[in-house]
């Protein structure tokens, strides 16, 4: 067999399992969703088998006036979710990046133990973790009690049920999502390159921006993606720590499937979000492919 042939075999061995898996267990559901998004909602959930594009009209601005109306409120929800997800990404990055550097310099054994320590808290249930923050942030919570007792404040602060609390909670639950990829690339940073940069007169900040950041960019990008996407759809944190006073994308879609029993509209919303994100991601993949073949492959 030629070398190219061998490579094809290897490639096939590596890709076939996942490709098959996706072809069956992901493409199937995806098709179901796409088809659903073009159907009319059944009266009690489910679908009616009629072609019905107005699910999209309701989001994009063309609507079936008899039945559905265009409503910019959905775009507003989308933007708001984007904003919170973006804040979350930035905050988790700030929390995780320096720690990744610190842990990457420990000895082999301690490194892995630290990784484990970071994920350990997440072995408990999401809800338990979040409720603890309720315990901490609420009016009669620990922070307020301590501040009151210390005489720093005379009225409890409004900590819980705020946007700040939402971002805090998001950061808390997404720490490992950011940490893992960032750590994976920070850990293999070639410090001789940092030395070379310092040697050429670049100060710490310049070295950070020109050398460390680009070389760890794959990890940052990976972390940003896997924090951003779940954060965009997350509604548990806004419910528990934000008091569900605002609607998030995740809520909106869930609401369509459950209380509004409008599966096609829910599917259409999901499709729109996926397409928007896919376009962004594809641009990212293209860009990273063109920029340094070596850094982002």
């Amino acid at each position, binding site marked *: 067999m030629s070398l190219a042939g061998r490579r094809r075999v290897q490639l096939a061995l590596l890709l076939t399992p996942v490709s098959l898996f996706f072809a069956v267990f992901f493409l199937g559901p995806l098709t179901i969703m796409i088809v659903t998004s073009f159907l009319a909602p059944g009266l009690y959930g489910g679908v009616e088998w009629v072609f019905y594009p107005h699910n999209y009209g309701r989001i994009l601005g063309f609507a079936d006036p008899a039945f559905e109306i265009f409503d910019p409120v959905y775009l507003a929800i989308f933007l708001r979710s984007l904003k919170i997800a973006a804040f979350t990404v930035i905050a988790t990055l700030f929390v995780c990046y320096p720690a990744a550097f610190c842990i990457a310099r420990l000895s082999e054994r301690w490194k892995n133990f630290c990784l484990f320590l970071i994920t350990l808290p997440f072995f408990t249930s999401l809800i338990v973790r979040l409720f603890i923050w309720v315990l901490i942030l609420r009016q009669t919570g620990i922070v307020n009690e301590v501040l009151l007792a210390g005489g720093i404040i005379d009225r409890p602060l409004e900590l819980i049920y705020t946007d700040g609390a939402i971002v805090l909670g998001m950061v808390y639950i997404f720490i490992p999502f950011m940490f893992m990829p960032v750590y994976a690339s920070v850990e293999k940073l070639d410090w001789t390159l940092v030395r070379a*940069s*310092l*040697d*050429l*007169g*670049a100060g710490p900040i310049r070295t950070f921006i020109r050398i460390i950041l680009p*070389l760890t960019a794959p990890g940052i990008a990976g972390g940003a993606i896997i924090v951003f996407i779940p954060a965009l759809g997350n509604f548990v944190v806004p419910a528990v720590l934000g008091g569900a006073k605002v609607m998030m994308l995740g809520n909106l879609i869930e609401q369509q499937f459950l209380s509004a029993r409008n599966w096609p509209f829910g599917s259409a919303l999901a499709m729109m979000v996926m397409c928007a994100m896919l376009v962004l991601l594809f641009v990212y993949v293209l860009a990273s492919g063109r920029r*340094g*073949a070596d850094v982002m492959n």
Partner: protein
Amino acid sequence: MRDSIVRLEGAAKTFPTPEGQSVTALDAIDLDVDRNEFLTLLGPSGCGKTTLLQAISGFVELDAGRILIDGEDMTTRPPYRRPVNTVFQNYALFPHMTVGENTGYALEVAGVAKAERMKQVAAALDMVGLTGMEGRRPRQLSGGQQQRVALARAIIARPKLLLLDEPLSALDKNLRQAMQIELKTLQSELGISFIFVTHDQQEALTMSDRVAVLSGGRIQQLDTPRNIYDRPNNSFVATFVGASNLFEGQMDNGWLLTSDGTAIRYVPSVGNVSGKAKALIRPEQLFISGEGRDHPFLDVEVEQLVFVGSSFELFGHTAEGRKVTAEIPAGRRSFVGEVEQTRKARLSYDPAAVHLIRCDADGI
């Protein structure tokens, strides 16, 4: 006080090893490098050359001692604030930058405008023979090309002091010579000082104002190339630099008598009249011809004649079994043919070319 660009005072560095011992990479080194000097570090693999450079550039923290650059104490100064650039032994090119970006990095950091920078990058790449390769990535270059990028990157900003860690080791002879000339030009035209590490002794001897021979983290001799070669301080330097025939024996007023009866003539001088010593005769000081018949000689049996380009190496031994090496210029073809036939040679030498090393200098 001398006008030194770098001054090391008692610089010491020890690395712990997994075997539980420790390696002394720098053993209380004192060193002054003069402004505009070209100083070469020579020494066996692992003797501390890289460590010494890294201490100067600030990447190895000394266990003890001080480093002054240009009169200022730099011991605690971070690397980026030292007026020093380095060609790293393993190049350390930035993989995510192109050749052009790598080369222009120091200028970019210094805030040089893009147009000017690109001009200087082009000039620097031109100098190292990589014109037009600005757009490549380091991994798309051959080993020697990478090394040249490292060189261009280090010199572009014209630092006061350049540290070069085997910067030409991956280059062929012609390119190497061209680079040597460029480096000497930088030295004379810009007044840059150099500390240069090389394993190419010819390079060390031709390029340097002074050579420091290191071993085990210590400076064995710091001197001009001529003195290093002709008048080594001790037998380590004698055998490390160049090829050598060393005869250990008792000095007897112009004769050095070895235990096996070989006698070497030398020109006695103060302190070289009696006592134990080693006589050094370089292979090229042993002539195969009969010329200069009044010279002393060694008769040897020839074991091997090896062609090394411009000359032949003659390996042989005396009647007493002592190994002797001589270098026969390739021009002397006729003699070579003769020797190849008879397997014998009379090697004469000039007593003035015999260098004596007192055995008490060999406390190494």
